[in-house]
């Protein structure tokens, strides 16, 4: 009986703090400012249909040259979270077709996170090309 009580209490508190931790983590990751190259993308994400923009940002990421090896693990996790939110939104529709503001904000944060990754990739690629140009001229 004692173990069962501990299990229930611990599970509830772990889940509660887990959600809070995830939110803080996502928030901290999306606090980096975007450079000029992706600023318009950031404005679009903040716009009225910004919560559905993750797919577009991911498509842009795919066409952007990638210098580093390995997959975007962070993006996979965020993509899964975005999908989970999308499914939740479909399962819990609001009367009148209104959007759930919390889900919309979370999905925007996911898209913003991907935009930061894109921004970092563009910066890195630009620096690399700049280095190549300098090398060939010397």
């Amino acid at each position: 009986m004692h173990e069962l009580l501990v299990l229930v209490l611990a599970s509830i508190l772990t889940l509660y703090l887990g959600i809070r931790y995830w939110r803080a983590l996502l928030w901290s990751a999306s606090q980096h400012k975007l450079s000029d190259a992706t600023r318009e993308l950031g404005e679009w994400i903040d716009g009225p249909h910004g919560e559905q923009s993750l797919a577009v940002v991911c498509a842009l990421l795919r066409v952007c040259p990638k210098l580093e090896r390995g997959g975007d693990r962070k993006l996979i996790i965020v993509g899964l979270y975005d999908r989970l939110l999308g499914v939740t939104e479909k399962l819990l529709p609001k009367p009148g077709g209104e959007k759930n503001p919390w889900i919309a904000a979370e999905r925007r944060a996911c898209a913003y996170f991907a935009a930061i990754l894109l921004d970092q990739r563009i910066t890195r690629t630009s620096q690399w090309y700049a280095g190549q140009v300098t090398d060939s001229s010397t």
Partner: protein
Amino acid sequence: MLGPFDFVVWLAGFLAEVFVLAWATHDRTLWRHRALLLYVAALAIDEILSFVILRRYGFTSNEYIYYYYYSDAVLTLLMFLAIMGLCARIFREQERSGRLRALTLIILATVALYAAAITLVKHQVLATHFAGEFCGGLYFTGMVMTYLVWVLLLSRRDPRLRLVLLVSAFGIYFGGQSAASALQSLFPALTALHYLSPMMGACLPVSLAYTFSWVSEEARIPLEQLAGVW
């Protein structure tokens, strides 16, 4: 016998601990979290010692079992010091710190007595059982303590992101270990449960490494960003 999975989990935790300590020598602002750094240093030493004992005596030896449980109990006590350090950092900026401190100390003492009472009532004479039960009690106490620290954090209007991440990481660790401990008591035959505890143990230093290296001391998270689900 330990498999590749155990080794990877152990290595991930150990590397994260070394990273945190190395980062602390580079970033002097982390010395504010002295108790936390002491805990991480103890963790790193424990990883090395447990590896040596494991190699010398084997996984099923009495030496390793005794070392594991007692070092775990000592580490958990050191972790309490780390949480008290976090608590002190929050109290330092609370206006009514005196009353809150007294209230927290009363609650902490009650929970600690509860953990000790449960251990004394339930433990058998075997020392490892005592250590195991004591650890379970400590995890539960730690979970309650961390939740209290979390409530204190939320009582501020602008919680610091670093503290939010540290406290919630500790809460997840203690809660997860308590749940794993309870599950092991309820279903002792379920071998898959034995992976839970080391995984939780590796996640905490990884989380500390992320927080210290990526999140600045000045970063603050608005309260409405944390609320909204429940």
